[in-house]
């Protein structure tokens, strides 16, 4: 199925979870956070949170700023 990760379309397995989405973009283990369709998904729930087709996944980290 198609999901959007940080604004880019990705093709994931139909059962894909947040963990799968992070793997797809080779996100690092630590220092990141995830929102799916505008809701925060706690780290503890990444493995168990299924993505719906067309889901918008945001993967953020800290950068220089402020």
């Amino acid at each position, binding site marked *: 199925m198609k999901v959007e990760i*940080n*604004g880019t379309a990705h093709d994931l397995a139909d059962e894909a979870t947040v963990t799968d989405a992070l793997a797809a*973009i*080779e*996100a*690092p283990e*630590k*220092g*990141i*956070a*995830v*929102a799916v369709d*505008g809701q*925060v998904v*706690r*780290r503890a729930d990444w493995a168990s949170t299924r993505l719906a087709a067309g889901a918008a996944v*945001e*993967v*953020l*980290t*800290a*950068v*220089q*700023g*402020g």
Partner: protein
Amino acid sequence: MDVSQDETLVVGGRKIGSRLITGTGGAANLEVLERALVASGTTLTTVAMRRIDAQTGTGVLDLLRRLGIEILPNTAGCRTAAEAVLTARLAREALETDLVKLEVVADERTLLPDPIELLDAAEQLVDDGFTVLPYTNDDPVLARKLEQAGCAAVMPLGSPIGTGLGIRNPHNIEMIVAQAGVPVVLDAGIGTASEAAQAMELGCDAVLLATAVTRAADPERMAHAMRLAVEAGYAARHAGRIPRRYWAQASSPEIDGPRFD
């Protein structure tokens, strides 16, 4: 809040070792940033939250952790309370801190805070257990409302972000200090050392700056200058300056001078 005797700055129950809080934006690269952070003596530094990508990775986090500097995520770029609240929650997830520098700006040209959205976001984040440090304008009324909303500090601007115009309205900053029951951090507008010293002399408890250091010709040296200036202004505030006089007062004894006639 006017700390009447010299003591460690405490924000939301946390001791902050240095009264100079720095930002990381604008540095040419991480090497330059590292030298500047070390020279500044800072113990608390802001970062922004952005989409991860291959290049950036988590370099700035690794640097701050290596230097033992506490991380203060901001909500830079947010224009509404909703965006800011979500960004703060993601920052808490990613960085495992309940500290947040709350920024909700109204437009790109002035980057001035939106007072309505800012107060709304502050209330939501306080309810959600955050330690909220709001970037605000220099309105004493809004500062008081933010304190009443439970913010751990108030961070009024001296002038708009990145302008280097210094403290445009010292009278407002003094009024904010006079009424504040939480630390007052002068945030934004500082361009040079004397302005950082002035902020402390006005009674601020700390200074937060980024551009003035990171975009200076020599960031490391400017960071050192700012460190000294904050200490100088704090010491001067508590040393009790002389009153201003209209006419002169001799510093050499006037009586009993020699007579040569």
